[in-house]
């Protein structure tokens, strides 16, 4: 029999950064923290939705939609946690919440799960990591990425490709044969649901879908692009988790919105640890990972410095 593959977790255990008892304690799951956070999450959504309603007849509707959009795009963070089954102890609740988030942000849950598996296997490995965002070579390319236009183009292309029953060569590598039909079905169901929603909107004459969902989603996505860049972009393209991933120390509201995914290096070390235990895992691993104490903005200053410096061997 072959040996187990070496993962960041096996390395951390072997090097004594974590003990087995630590690991068991950190991995402990419970539904309660997720329900508590979701209750506040819903209140935040009600608040930002109300702001749009209050600003309906003025220019203030645009900042209100932007604010609402920032919350909407953070359903990605919740969906990401659901992919790892680390939101709820009850497994099917993760599937349900992940599907709902996927519908909100137009990201089929099953497909994302398979894609994300390879991201964890090949983190920052050029050509193998399907979620890798390369370091932009120019300020123009940096701004173009942040516009979210390339992101949406890629996501819509993906969705329609799957709905038409096709997978790209890259996708064929990480989606097992037995799941191809299910991925196609998911994309078709998603497009059907959107079609029915918009048909209902046209028939009833209610334009709320546009003002409460679509425009805010597109206004907010650049913020999610900005955040996602801070996770790996500009870190060395090497397999070592202590080097290739950035943990960003951010304020409580951002930690709430991103379900503690700012503790990104910790998450990559032990992906089975639920969101609520990541701050404790950070205390344990903080001396063994790359931490950006200045948060998202400092991470972008680092990225911009590297872009302005131009191609070179050093990325840290």
């Amino acid at each position, binding site marked *: *029999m*072959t040996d*187990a*593959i070496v*993962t960041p*977790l*096996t390395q951390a*255990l072997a090097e004594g950064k974590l003990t087995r008892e630590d*690991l*068991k304690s950190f*991995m402990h*799951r419970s539904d309660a923290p997720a329900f508590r956070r979701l209750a506040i999450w819903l209140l935040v959504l009600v608040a930002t939705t109300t702001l749009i309603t209050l600003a309906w007849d003025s220019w203030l509707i645009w900042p209100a939609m932007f604010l609402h959009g920032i919350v909407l795009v953070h359903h990605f963070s919740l969906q990401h946690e659901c*992919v*790892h*089954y*680390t939101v709820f*102890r009850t*497994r099917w609740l993760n599937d349900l919440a992940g599907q709902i988030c996927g519908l909100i942000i137009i990201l089929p849950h*099953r497909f994302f*799960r*398979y894609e994300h*598996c390879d991201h*964890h*296997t090949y983190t920052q490995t050029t050509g193998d990591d399907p979620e890798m965002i390369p370091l932009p070579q120019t300020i123009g390319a940096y701004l173009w990425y942040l516009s979210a236009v390339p992101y949406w183009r890629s996501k819509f292309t993906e969705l329609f490709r799957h709905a038409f029953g096709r997978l790209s060569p890259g996708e064929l590598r990480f989606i*097992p044969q*037995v*799941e191809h039909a299910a991925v196609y079905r998911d994309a078709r169901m998603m497009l059907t649901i959107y079609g029915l929603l918009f048909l209902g909107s046209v028939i009833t004459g209610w334009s709320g879908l546009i003002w409460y969902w679509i425009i805010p989603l597109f206004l907010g996505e650049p913020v999610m692009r900005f955040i996602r860049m801070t996770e790996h972009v500009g870190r060395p393209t090497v397999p070592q988790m202590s080097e290739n991933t950035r943990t960003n120390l951010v304020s409580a509201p951002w930690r709430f919105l991103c379900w503690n995914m700012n503790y990104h290096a910790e998450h990559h070390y*032990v*992906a*089975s640890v639920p969101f609520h235990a990541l701050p404790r895992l950070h205390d344990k691993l903080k001396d063994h990972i790359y931490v950006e104490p200045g948060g998202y903005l400092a991470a972008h200053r680092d990225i911009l410095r590297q872009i302005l410096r131009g191609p070179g061997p050093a990325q840290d």
Partner: protein
Amino acid sequence: MANEKPWRDIIAVSALEKGWVTRVDIGPRKLAIYDTPSGIFASLALCNHGGADLCDGYFDGHVIECPLHQGAFDVRDGMPVGAPATKPMRVFETRVTKGMVQVRM
């Protein structure tokens, strides 16, 4: 029956991690021994999806979750219960005799 594989002593019950999964090396084979609410079960220790060691994963009731991608299996019959696990994992018939976990292998 003549073709049945023999029972082998694997580990003392008292040495198992209670309510959790314990790794045992038997020659070149790595086994995962599960202490569950309905008894003790055994499987190969490496995930058949990505090859990670299931014994470092999260264990809850009868479900073992791979630490690398969180694919999951029911340890009673080896059936996959969560993507990206899609194939059954290999499980072994298990019993307890005189305080020892025995596996037919």
